[in-house]
């Protein structure tokens, strides 16, 4: 029997189809949005409720080796937040590093239906997929870390761009990865020796290539392979005062490679690389400068990495930064370097509103969201769990939509920070349509997930219905209403099925895992394999044959095919 569902009279926000707050009916059949359904279809009356496409999180660390190492590091994080087994749901633990099942449930409860893990060490990506497979309800994918890969650095050093492209295509296929992730290019390789690099033009020890060359090279590769997303970059110099300049320089490093008026580089969690000043004492917000650059240049998109005051677990492939944070905070520290590829670090951290630096960080994220004019190029994230857990999104939405909500927090943060931030002078308040853009439409577009992030005919029926009637509530003055509404949906629908109702999980399905396969020419592929074979044993401690992840390894693989230009 065909599954049919109609949602009637909802107040719809669907930015990709230019629908902003119109009262509409939406029909669903076999998991897709359709023109009409039979009379027997189940009906949901959503009169006086807002409806948006399911949320799409472009950057959230939910699975893999370092996430699990974070869980193992922090029993104290789990003890304060447990979930009991029910008839329909598994038990688990939450707070900043939820267990896999709880991650899926909590995203679904908030109306999010697609989430990408932005940093998987290729050699350990089987682990990432095991966890993604264990995460219910949501669709997902992961970005392999390629900015410190030995093969890639060598191809770029030697000017062998085509081989580099073929290698990246092979890597994405071998790891079932979705997009190119670059973290602290060259910096993590230097950290293999306990050393640091700072600038875009610092040569990388033993490899005779610079971060700039890696970023530019992979940006070109991304284009050659016609990948669905753009290079996803965590810049050098993260966490250091004055690093906003590195962010701008990184964006500018690929400016000449843009040929159309669309982004070719995504700078992630810009809050962490938006520090002005020269020391912790005169740290300031570099958000205005970064926003100016973004406003003037269409080749760039960014996401926030918004800080949430409270306890969390920081984790990134940027091993040197995590060591630095460990030294700064004195908190416990995990480091996990990965041969020939990348690294990672984990440090528990508490953001305090009374701490000057943390308060400035909180301000940077919001300033950036409010100063970047085009909501299609700034996505809402907390860089979960780095700025704070993803469950804090309703807070961020309230801050963006209500100056009153911001003022309330500003009055409680560190006084010096309050004086030095521009935030109190910014009047902009996001509309619901803009919120729908930065939380679903824009990230889906950036990932070229054609059937996600909108409610047009043929789209996946991934839908969030929130109990909020903007005609009845003065949202700017009632931020608590915003927070409450976005905390849990009235209904979350995934592939046409109701998976969450008023915060209760009603379905226990598993979503798809998206990955990319870009086909290069047979000759190039054959040459590449010969080259990989000749060096693989020298670089890795496992055999080449045992490296690629088999097709049957993933629970529900969803391949995106692209045609390479080489």
């Amino acid at each position: 029997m065909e599954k049919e569902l109609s949602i009637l009279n909802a107040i719809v926000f669907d930015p990709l189809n230019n629908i902003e707050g119109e009262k509409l009916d939406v029909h669903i059949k076999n998991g897709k949005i359709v023109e009409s359904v039979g009379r027997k279809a189940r009906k949901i009356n959503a009169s006086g409720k807002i409806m948006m496409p399911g949320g799409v999180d472009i950057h959230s660390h939910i699975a893999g080796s370092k996430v699990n190492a974070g869980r193992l590091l922090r029993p104290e994080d789990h003890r304060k937040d447990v979930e009991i087994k029910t008839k329909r749901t598994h038990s688990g633990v939450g707070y900043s590093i939820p267990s896999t099942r709880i991650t899926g449930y909590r995203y679904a409860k908030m109306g999010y239906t697609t989430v990408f893990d932005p940093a998987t060490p290729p050699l350990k990506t089987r682990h990432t997929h095991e966890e993604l497979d264990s995460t219910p309800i949501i669709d997902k994918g992961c970005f392999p870390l390629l900015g410190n890969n030995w093969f890639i650095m060598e191809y770029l050093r030697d000017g062998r761009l085509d081989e580099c492209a073929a290698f990246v295509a092979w890597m994405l296929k071998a790891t079932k990865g979705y997009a190119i992730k670059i973290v602290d290019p060259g910096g993590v390789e230097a950290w293999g020796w306990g050393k640091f690099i700072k600038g875009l033009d610092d040569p990388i020890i033993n490899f005779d290539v610079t971060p700039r060359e890696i970023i530019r090279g992979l940006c070109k590769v991304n284009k050659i392979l016609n990948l669905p997303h753009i290079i996803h970059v965590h810049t050098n110099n993260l966490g250091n005062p004055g690093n906003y300049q590195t962010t701008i320089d990184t964006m500018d490093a690929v400016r000449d490679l843009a040929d159309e008026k669309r982004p070719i580089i995504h700078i992630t969690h810009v809050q962490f690389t938006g520090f002005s000043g020269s020391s912790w004492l005169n740290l300031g917000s570099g958000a205005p400068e970064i926003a100016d650059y973004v406003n003037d240049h269409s080749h760039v998109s960014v996401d926030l990495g918004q800080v949430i005051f409270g306890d969390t677990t920081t984790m990134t492939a940027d091993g040197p930064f995590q060591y630095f944070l460990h030294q700064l905070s004195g908190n416990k520290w995990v480091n996990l370097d990965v041969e020939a590829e990348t690294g990672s670090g984990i440090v528990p951290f508490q953001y305090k509103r009374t701490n000057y630096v943390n308060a400035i960080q909180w301000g940077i994220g919001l300033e950036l969201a409010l100063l970047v004019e085009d909501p299609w190029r700034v996505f809402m994230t907390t860089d979960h769990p780095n700025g704070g857990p993803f469950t804090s999104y309703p807070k961020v939405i309230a801050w963006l939509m209500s100056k009153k909500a911001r003022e309330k927090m500003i009055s409680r943060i560190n006084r010096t920070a309050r004086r030095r931030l521009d935030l109190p002078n910014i009047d902009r308040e996001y509309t619901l349509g803009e919120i729908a853009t930065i939380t679903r439409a824009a990230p889906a577009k950036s990932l070229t997930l054609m059937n996600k992030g909108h409610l047009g005919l043929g789209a996946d029926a991934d839908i969030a219905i929130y109990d909020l009637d903007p005609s009845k509530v003065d949202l700017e003055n009632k931020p608590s209403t915003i927070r409450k509404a976005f905390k849990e949906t009235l209904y979350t629908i995934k592939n046409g099925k109701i998976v969450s109702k008023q915060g209760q999980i009603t379905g226990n399905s598993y979503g798809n895992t998206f990955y990319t396969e870009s086909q290069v020419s047979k000759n190039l592929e054959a040459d590449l394999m010969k080259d990989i074979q000749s060096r693989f044993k020298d670089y890795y401690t496992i055999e080449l044959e045992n490296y690629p992840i088999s097709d049957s390894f993933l629970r529900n693989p969803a391949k995106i095919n692209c045609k390479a230009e080489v």
Partner: protein
Amino acid sequence: MSQEIISNVICTVCGCSCDHLQVTINNDKIVKVKNACAMSSGKMLGYRNERITQPMMKKGRTLKPTTYERAIDATAKIITKSSSPLFYGWSLTSNEAIEIGVDLAEETGGFFDNTTSICHGPTILGVHEIGESSCTLGEIRHRADLVIYWGSNPVHAHPLHMSRYTVMSKGRFRKSRADRKLVVIDVRKTDTAKLADVFIQIEPNSDYELMSALRAAVRGDEIEQEIVSGVPIDKIEELAEMLINCEFGALFFGLGLTMSSGKNKNIEAALSLVKELNSKTKFVIMPMRGHFNVNGANNVTTWLTGYPYAVDFTQGFPRYNPGETSAVDLLARGECDSALIVASDPISNFPHQAAKHLTSIPLMTIDPHITPTTMCSDIILPSAHVGIETTGSTYRMDGVVLETRKLVDPPKTVKTDVEILSALLKRVKSLKR
């Protein structure tokens, strides 16, 4: 059937997960293994010995053959009826099987523990407190110019560790044994110690003292004693200089450190030493994990429950308190009222009191071989060998996951762990309805 040679086979013995074995198969039997250590060859060529080939159930005092259906049904009834069943073992099976095992424990409100709790459990407790500076084994192969084995004897316990990953391996930046220093710290001159550039023999159960003295020396503190743990201060200071002056150091430790007096405190001191060394040079630390998938058991349990072992589901959510919720302690207190053992032999390894309680409660075992535990069991569910007779993913000691292969068929009458556990979970769910 003709002869077949399979290359790049992944070994399923210890935490090294060597993946370069060459296996010759004749008539669906492994007849030859190349590139393997003695332990690996032993398993690869001996996997057919002492097998259990059909399910058994106790009738009166003797075990009688039965069918999987009956044995699974009986097992399901026992664990469903139990107020606190124990699910123990898991380190010699695949991640896929472990995942079902955790769900089984959750479904029945029992305890889920793996062999970590009698092995590197203290290591994990240390990591909770301090964290760890670590890496994959290839990083050590490429970069390490100083390798230390402390309370660990890889020549016998992890025979290819040194040649594949450490002092005897060829890396990008370290070409040979001459480019590296090997330090061994142990209570006796082991065969590994015989290969060392520096061997430090310490008094038994004094690792914590030596580790602390070493930390002090690395910091440049004055040590007033002349001898610590049987080692003269000069030698400790010399060692501290070696640690500080290397470019990339790696400290491997075994149960000699984990299970000697001080336990998790020893590990905390070791983790702290390595952490502190990172302000002077690059240094990493790694436990020498024993069973081929004990690391997988920790990882799977952690992503499902937040905790790596000793998980208590009796209250409907995961709870963790090793020493209270770990298998040995539960059994010694006589708390569990049934036990399902998977791929492990606790009757041989547990303290007497704990083993005794196991024999006094309904005991069910899933295992390929006859062991003291199967001999004491009320129900035996024979299973196939992961990595030989069935596929399954496993974790190397450094967290690299590999997909093991099926090389030969299991005995015709034998099912895999995944098949048995899935059927069991399904039956438990239907009984609860």
